């Protein structure tokens, strides 16, 4: 579903963001992308939803080479990819319903069908009672649920999330993670970037760690080139070995 071959990305000379990253994610996988701030997690996600192109190497998403996409083809790819951000990225002057409906409007679908589908999706994320509210009237957790609803309403093949619980408390984080698990159970490939080890510890899911732009750890490949740091985020050998089962 997602393949990266020797991918490097730099915006400025001598300052690479990603260095020789190799990654293979199969259909339906749930993978945590972890690493400290500035490790290159967001850049890697941007490559996957075609916001940027790699400086070198190949990125294949759903079998399509990202470097060969054009302005015309990118929108059609993005319709199969849901994206969730830490800061939610909701439109402040639109209601919850309108924000979620945005992803269906671009498909020129009939309004009745859009309304019905949005209702179903809001029920799924537990926001039916907030349908007419504006983002500023919602809590952080509710806003993130709207963003997830928007990302999932198209039944995407891939769901990318960039620190989706970064601004949320522990209880809300649990709820939000439940929605990602639910999407994964429905067959969506999920790649979730986070620096919070509490999210992926004991989940038994695959973890890929980036450090200084390099993939230094992959629980599935038994790759472990991590540098011992004091950030307290590095997993123990036992968790690494107990990766994806």
């Amino acid at each position, binding site marked *: 579903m997602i393949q990266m071959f020797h991918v490097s990305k730099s915006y400025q000379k001598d300052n690479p963001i990603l260095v020789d990253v190799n990654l293979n994610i199969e259909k339906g996988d749930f993978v945590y992308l972890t690493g400290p701030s500035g490790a290159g997690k967001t850049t890697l996600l941007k490559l996957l939803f075609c916001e940027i192109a790699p400086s070198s190497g190949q990125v294949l998403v759903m079998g399509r080479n990202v470097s060969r996409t054009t302005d015309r083809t990118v*929108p059609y790819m*993005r319709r199969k990819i849901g994206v969730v951000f830490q800061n939610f*990225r909701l*439109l402040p002057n639109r209601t919850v319903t309108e924000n979620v409906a*945005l*992803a269906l*409007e*671009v498909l020129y679908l*009939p309004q009745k069908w859009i309304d019905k589908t949005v209702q179903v999706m809001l029920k799924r994320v537990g926001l039916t009672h907030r349908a007419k509210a504006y983002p500023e009237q919602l809590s952080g957790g509710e806003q993130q649920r709207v963003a997830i609803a928007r990302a999932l309403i198209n039944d995407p093949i891939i769901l990318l999330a960039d620190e989706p619980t970064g601004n949320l408390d522990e209880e809300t984080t649990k709820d939000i993670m439940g929605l990602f698990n639910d999407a994964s159970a429905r067959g969506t490939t999920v790649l979730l970037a986070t620096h919070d080890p509490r999210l992926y510890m004991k989940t038994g899911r695959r973890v890929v760690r980036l450090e200084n732009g390099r993939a230094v750890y992959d629980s599935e490949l038994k790759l472990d080139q991590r540098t011992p740091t004091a950030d307290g985020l590095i997993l123990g050998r036992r968790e690494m070995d107990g990766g994806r089962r």
Partner: protein
Amino acid sequence: MMRPLIYFVMKALKSIKRTPALTAATVGMLTVIFLLFNGFALISHNVSTQAERWISSVRMTAFLENSATPEDAQRIAAEFTKRPLVTGAFYVTQQEAEDRFLGNFPGSKNILEGLPKNPLPSSLELELNPENIDIASLEQLASDMEKLPEVEEALYGRELFSKLTAFVSILRLMGLMIGLALVVATLFLTANTIRLSLYARREEIGILQLVGATRWFIRWPYLIEGLLQGFLGAAFSILITWLLFRASLGPLADVLTGPFGQIELQFFDPLFISKEILAGAFLGTLGSFLALGRFWRTA
């Protein structure tokens, strides 16, 4: 096809609703620019119409030598009416010339009576085809006639004709320049308004792109917004021009009554009005398109 169109029109209207002051300012400025154009076009149209009316009524008079006979005149008339410029020729005898003179200047009878014989020459009056009239062909015709031994002189009001045609040409050139200025100003204004609108909604456009909106999906509402601004600017200017035209007809009536009778002022015909409104809509759309092109390059 209809559903997306309605959706885009609704989006454009919502956008206008969200920024009413900006839209009103743009439409207002476009109206003023079109008004300036209309003012010039209206004056130019009426002056040109009068000038062209005179130009198309030009006749050429070939004064014949005293030795020329009516047969000579008939022969010359037959020869020259073959030309596309000449539609008819009328022979005016010396007696008819005298009658006309006395008809126009009754007090001059004594002058003619004092002379030994009628000094007024016989002549050929040529009626000309207005569609073929221009200074070069008139000059050629006059020159050809004057080469004939029977013709003393061929006249058509050369100086006035030259001045009028030059004046009409200058008016047309000025119209063209003002038209070009209008095009540039309209493009500049709509492009700027749409650009401001685009930057204000940068986040929204980013999210639309994120969920898979094509560029055309994003473009259409802005193009429609530009079209509406251009359309409204042109339409309001026509309406105001018409109101001003109607209001000024009364006060101008006395001024426009000259020695040749009342000059009837004309407003733009429906075809011109349609063209101007369509041009406004087109320029507004083009302005939007240019703004979008720049936005994509810098976004």
